[in-house]
């Protein structure tokens, strides 16, 4: 019953949706109504009852209104050592006046690009929340990197969020990367205020041939943030897509990361850390779809769970019948630090081709007692030794971040957390 009433709250949102992108929205609306919000036992949301969470925490199912963000806000939010261009958002709305003009890169509001095939990458039929976003998003951003562009400095997508009027924030991002280009994005959101809000984000990345996209994200928002994010990328011939996702905070966070390997000799890499405490619940669902021969995917997610936190990992490798000569590797390691922490992990392989090398591994355990003893024997006290080992455990993922300043920033956040915690 509860999901039904929830659907009603969203349906008034659907009624009030902007009038642009009509066919795109209609398609998504039909898809959303057909799927409904995930039911209690829905396989894809088995351990993450987001519908119930929304019911408990969200009272106003209308879009959060834009609010004034100042240059001061931006200045204080950008991490130390950042060297690049910043695009600023408030509750999902792009703020051109505070954002950089990046040479050679086209940035505009989505509403100015009404011919865009939104939803052609992150298809609304796959997930109800992606469909909801597509049916009801207010506006979003269009970023286009031209051909043969080596964008050396990272682009920071800096969002300021807070419940303002309504509690719904639905960012929508469309990124196009031309052939032979390389670009790095850093996605960071800052919570202003402590109140609950629901972020339902969709990012679509359309890569060109021989393009290289790095998409780094840090989730370190307020303790009351509920979030569902969908990042989906089509990876063309000879291209790579590298994703690193660092989750540190939130109330309930669900990340859907879908990589579609559509051109041969393409590569999709997915890395992540979830370092959680309190009652934070983070669910990482990744799906890599090998549709063509000769492609590779690598995945490594690591979790450290303290207090009553919960980590969910579901990694799916899908190898289609034509995708011969596929190499796909997946690894998920978890360390539980407290009696009340929980981990639910499901590394999943679906293989329809025979000439493949696919493997996955998954562990849940503790710190190596012998390593701990080794450090203690050398005069390092136990807490420090634990922190050191956990830091090393997370380090394997951190080193996948190529932008040095961002890697150091994440590293300092993790060290701070580990130091304060243990």
């Amino acid at each position, binding site marked *: 019953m509860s999901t039904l009433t929830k659907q009603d709250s969203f349906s008034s949102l659907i009624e009030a949706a902007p009038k642009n992108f009509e066919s795109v929205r209609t398609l998504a609306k039909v898809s959303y109504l057909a799927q409904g919000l995930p039911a209690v036992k829905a*396989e894809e949301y088995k351990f993450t009852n987001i519908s119930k969470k929304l019911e408990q925490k969200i009272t106003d199912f209308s879009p959060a209104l834009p609010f004034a963000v100042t240059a001061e806000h931006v200045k204080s939010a950008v991490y130390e050592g950042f060297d690049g261009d910043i695009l600023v958002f408030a509750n999902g709305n792009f703020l051109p006046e505070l954002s950089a003009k990046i040479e050679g890169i086209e940035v505009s509001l989505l509403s100015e690009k009404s011919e865009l095939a939104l939803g052609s990458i992150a298809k609304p039929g796959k997930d109800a929340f992606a469909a909801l976003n597509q049916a009801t998003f207010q506006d979003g951003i269009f970023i286009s990197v031209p051909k043969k562009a080596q964008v050396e400095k990272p682009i920071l997508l800096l969002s300021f969020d807070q419940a303002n009027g309504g509690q719904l924030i639905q960012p929508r991002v469309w990124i196009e990367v031309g052939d032979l280009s390389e670009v790095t994005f850093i996605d960071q959101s800052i919570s202003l205020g402590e109140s609950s809000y629901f972020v339902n984000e969709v990012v679509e990345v359309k890569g060109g041939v021989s393009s290289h996209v790095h998409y780094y994200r840090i989730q370190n928002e307020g303790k009351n943030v509920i979030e569902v994010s969908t990042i989906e990328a089509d990876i063309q011939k000879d291209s790579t897509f590298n994703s690193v996702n660092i989750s540190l905070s939130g109330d309930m966070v669900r990340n859907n990361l879908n990589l579609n390997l559509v051109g041969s000799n393409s590569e999709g890499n997915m890395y992540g850390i979830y370092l959680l405490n309190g009652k934070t619940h983070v669910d990482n669902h990744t799906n890599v779809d090998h549709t063509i021969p000769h492609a590779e995917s690598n995945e490594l997610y690591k979790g450290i769970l303290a207090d009553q936190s919960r980590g969910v990992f579901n990694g799916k490798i899908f190898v289609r*019948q034509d995708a*011969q000569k596929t190499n796909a590797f997946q690894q998920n390691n*978890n360390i*539980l*630090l*407290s*009696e009340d*922490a*929980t*981990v*639910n*992990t*499901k*590394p*999943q*392989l*679906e*293989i*329809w*081709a*025979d*000439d*493949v*090398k*696919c*493997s*996955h*591994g*998954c*562990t*849940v*355990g*503790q710190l190596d007692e012998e390593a701990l003893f080794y450090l203690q024997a050398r005069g390092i006290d136990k807490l420090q030794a634990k922190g050191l080992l956990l830091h090393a455990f997370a380090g394997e993922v951190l080193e996948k971040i190529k932008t040095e300043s961002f890697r150091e920033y994440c590293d300092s956040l993790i060290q701070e957390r580990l130091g304060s915690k243990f």
Partner: protein
Amino acid sequence: MSKDNSILEELTSKEYEHGWSVNYEADEAPIGLNEDIIRWISAKKEEPQWLLEWRLKAFRTWLTMTEPEWANVHYPKIDLQALRYYSAPKQIKKSKNLDEVDPELIAIYERLGISLNEQKRLQGIAVDAVLDSVSVATTFRGTLSKLGIVFCSFSEAVKEYPELIQKYLGSVVPMTDNYYAALNSAVFSDGSFCYIPKGVRCPMELSTYFRINAANTGQFERTLIVADDESYVSYLEGCTAPSRDENQLHAAVVEIYAGTHAQVKYSTVQNWYPGDKEGKGGIYNFVTKRGICAGDHSKISWTQVETGSAVTWKYPSCILKGDYSIGEFYSVAVTNNYQQADTGTKMIHIGKNTKSRIVSKGISAGKSQNSYRGQVQVMKRADNARNFSQCDSLLMGDRCGAHTFPYIDINNPSAKVEHEATTSKIGEDQIFYCNQRGIATEDAVALIVNGYAKEVLNQLPMEFAVEAQKLLALTLEGSVG
């Protein structure tokens, strides 16, 4: 590629060895499923009132349940009203004396290679032979009863040991556990019962051989094994069925109870009719198997070699309740042609210092689909639980699929859980290595597959291991990927 195709063709034309059937006059229940049928079966078996009520309760719950659809298998829905729920050879008069069993029935088993004649047996294996809905004969009962071991058909056990049945029936797999377990609880016809008293090590392998003969009949047997404290038993299960164009349903329930320091080893070589090369016919094998390590230091080990059935849906599980208890699962699942298997295990760690080990080897050929689905759950109080899982899949041919769905749910920080899985085909370098040494490609594949499955086959009792190896070679003959 053309060579591969011709070899695959050859493979798909392999005949099912046990596809024959015999005609005998049968005592059958009317077709259909309702409370009257259940009363009919219960009356036929002269069951006590409490068991009839138990069945009816299960039936009424079943009516409220829906068929599960989460498994990675696709098949036309079964019309459960069009099935016959009881079919037994008419001549049968269950006798404790084997000489009195109808020679015709004994001949069926002789033809399957199962000798019911105690003198002729080389190895000590006691057999309970189940044909369609009833148990035909149980061998070595005398020898076993001297040790206090009870080994007989389920119907006899209901009459002779009602207190044991009443205590343990449904204690591991509750009647309402799932759709097929509930159906089985309502209409189960026969099966085996075995009780090993305290401190007794069963001197021979106990075994049940299931044979479906009648058409349009579902087989619903129920096996209950109770190993009292400090006892040991090794139990084998084999099964075959005639080749028929229509699908037949087999929905069994196996329950194992292990007391303190008890050990139970349960081995299955499942060779139900898999359907023809077009995927027509074959058995739907929807089985619920579960054991509980109720006492401390107890151990339950499942070993299965799954080569038959059109659709398999089976998850032998262990509930590790006692401290220091151990659960094991070793499986080789081979699918060919249009076979579909969704099989795996559940290890539920409840007690402290419990251990479990999962080794699953899937081999898919032809157009088959082979899935491993498993769960390792460590409860909050299960300190120092340890699990190791390994699931490997071997693919032969480019039209088949191999899937892995492991669920790992950990609620205790002291747990150590490891899972690893690989999917690949037989390496060309491996074949080449064998070819170089004068081993033909065909033999090389057999060699490699046997080596691949060895870890599991080694767990089988000797007689079964030989059969399983042959079966494996036969099922995959010619399938060079």
